């Protein structure tokens, strides 16, 4: 079986394809097809049929999200109001580095994709919200945007159609919370990036109170291929009920950390042992986070798990971003969870008490345990804190995301926590 890699086929990290070369390999075909031959609702229908789900972490069906953008009748005064598309390129979830590959390696593909998405939802203005640290991506994207304007793919009358789109690059000034879509919208409006209350959802009231769609880089990058090759082709790419390919990643002490575009729904074993080459010599797999820092730990018992949205959820975690972070048996699980929670405590926007205080308490408690000064009561309070910060109790999903690695570590690595407490030291210390 030959595996197709539509998203990454034309990636060149040393020097991404310039406009002419990108067009030579079929780039921007989908734009011509969409704006000249298809109506917006036809584009929407094709994307719906393709079964594309969001690759930003939550796996929400893309066309369904788009369908919430109000479709006003021409006589409605709101008909001519602005709508916006925003590409979420804030990638900052520790252990996640897939979007960077697409941004640096094939920037034109993202622009092509954003034209398709904007056309489908009726937006005439689009933004790429790029994290501030991705300097190389910023330069390459800006070059590509300028080229797209020069070649009539952006601006007014795109490819002689009557469709107009302006696309801007916004580089952020830091903070993980900017990746949360409503916080991102506040940041783009020039405000502090505290998340907004939902509802109203951004699809109805987003940037400057106007209908706004926020989609992840990888999600969007699928669109040209879906338009060109059709929904059945896209569905057939995957090994499971989730359509398409996925850019999976692996980091930690495996032989070959990296990124691979693979059929959606491959197994953890295939990913970690075939592609990542297994563990480094002398190390064994102790556990892993399947999709970034805010997903629950799984263990060596889950190697045959299929990396699809439903499958990973049924195993008690989330597919998240598909970037596996591997814990080996020489790294301390308590130390790992402490590192993760320090990140969440630092990146909490401070808006709501369970998250602002809860993450800080967890860090303090885990530090005590890691240093051999923890007690059994500390374990009880960690369990309580997990409950205190869980879904529905906080203003956004950052705090529940912080709970995921913690609650699952308490479950799977219970013995390690106990040993720290009983022996009054970290049993891994000196084992690196």
């Amino acid at each position, binding site marked *: 079986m030959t595996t197709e890699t539509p998203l990454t086929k034309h990636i060149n990290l040393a020097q991404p394809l310039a406009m002419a070369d990108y067009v030579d390999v079929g780039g921007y075909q989908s734009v011509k097809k969409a704006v000249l031959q298809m109506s917006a609702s036809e584009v929407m229908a094709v994307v719906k049929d393709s079964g594309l789900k969001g690759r930003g972490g939550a796996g929400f069906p893309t066309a369904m999200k788009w369908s919430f953008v109000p479709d006003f009748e021409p006589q409605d005064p709101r008909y001519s109001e602005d709508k916006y598309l925003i590409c979420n390129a804030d990638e900052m979830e520790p252990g996640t580095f897939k979007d960077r590959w697409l941004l640096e390696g094939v920037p034109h593909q993202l622009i092509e994709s954003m034209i398709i998405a904007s056309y489908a939802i009726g937006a005439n203005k689009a933004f790429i919200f790029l994290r501030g*640290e991705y300097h190389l991506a910023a330069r390459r994207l800006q070059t590509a945007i300028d080229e797209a304007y020069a070649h009539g793919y952006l601006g007014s009358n795109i490819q002689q159609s009557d469709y107009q789109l302006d696309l801007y690059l916004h580089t*952020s000034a830091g903070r993980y919370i900017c990746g949360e879509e409503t916080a991102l919208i506040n940041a783009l409006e020039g405000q502090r990036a505290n998340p907004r209350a939902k509802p109203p959802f951004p699809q109805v009231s987003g940037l400057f109170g106007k209908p706004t769609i926020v989609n992840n880089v990888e999600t969007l990058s699928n669109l040209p291929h879906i338009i060109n090759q059709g929904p059945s082709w896209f569905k057939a790419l995957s090994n499971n009920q989730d359509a398409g390919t996925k850019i999976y990643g692996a*980091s930690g002490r495996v032989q070959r950390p990296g990124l691979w575009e693979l059929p959606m729904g491959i197994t953890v074993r295939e990913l970690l042992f075939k592609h990542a080459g297994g563990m480094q010599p002398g190390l064994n797999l102790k556990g892993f986070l399947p999709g970034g820092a805010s997903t629950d730990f799984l263990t060596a018992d889950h190697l045959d798990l299929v990396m699809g949205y439903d499958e990973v959820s049924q195993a008690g975690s989330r597919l998240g971003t598909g970037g596996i*972070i591997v814990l080996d048996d020489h790294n301390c699980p308590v130390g790992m969870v402490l590192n993760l929670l320090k990140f969440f405590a630092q990146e909490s926007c401070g808006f709501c008490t369970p998250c602002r205080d809860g993450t800080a308490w967890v860090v303090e408690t885990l530090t005590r345990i890691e240093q051999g000064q923890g007690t059994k009561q500390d374990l009880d309070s960690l369990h309580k804190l997990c409950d205190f910060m869980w879904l529905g109790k906080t203003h956004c999903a950052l705090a529940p995301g912080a709970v995921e690695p913690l609650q699952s570590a308490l479950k799977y690595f219970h013995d390690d926590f106990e040993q720290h407490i009983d022996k009054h030291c970290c049993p891994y210390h000196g084992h690196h």
Partner: protein
Amino acid sequence: MSLATQLPRTGEGNIEINQLSYRDYLSMDEIDAIEHEVSIMGKRHAAGIEALKLVQKNRGWISDDSLYAIAELLQMTVSQLEGIATFYNLIYRQPVGRYVIHVCDSISCYLTGYQAVSEAIKAQLGIGYGQTTEDGMFTLLTNACLGSCDKAPAMMIGEDHFEHLTPQSARDILQQLQQERGKKPETTQK
């Protein structure tokens, strides 16, 4: 025109701000670039973050004077802009060195030996996190995941990313930059 103003701040004594009109303080290029951002967003205050980044790129950091000038240009209150400036970790509200070093302290770097690299950097520079070397060359900060998790440990110096770090390679990178000391001391990095 400088109207040195004494602003009382609770608990901190007085600070002096040379409150200029933004026209006397910001360069024409800065004003033009900020106005361009305003024209994209359609609302003046929406350009606040871009404006802070633009001015910081030219001047290294955001001084109180810069804050006042940008706030005036964007017709927002200084406290509103300060609330934004202090929210984002890549806006520096204190003077920084010519090279700002951001060492990734997130999970994949942690699992692959960031601590040893971090200790080597601190020893080489003789400073801790949040500090600037006395010669004004280096400021040392941490950063959340830099997106180099498969090439961890990683750090960013200015706009350059360094990957697969070892204590030795980190020392070498810094030594190379230290050798430039004295060549162009006052300029901030592009």
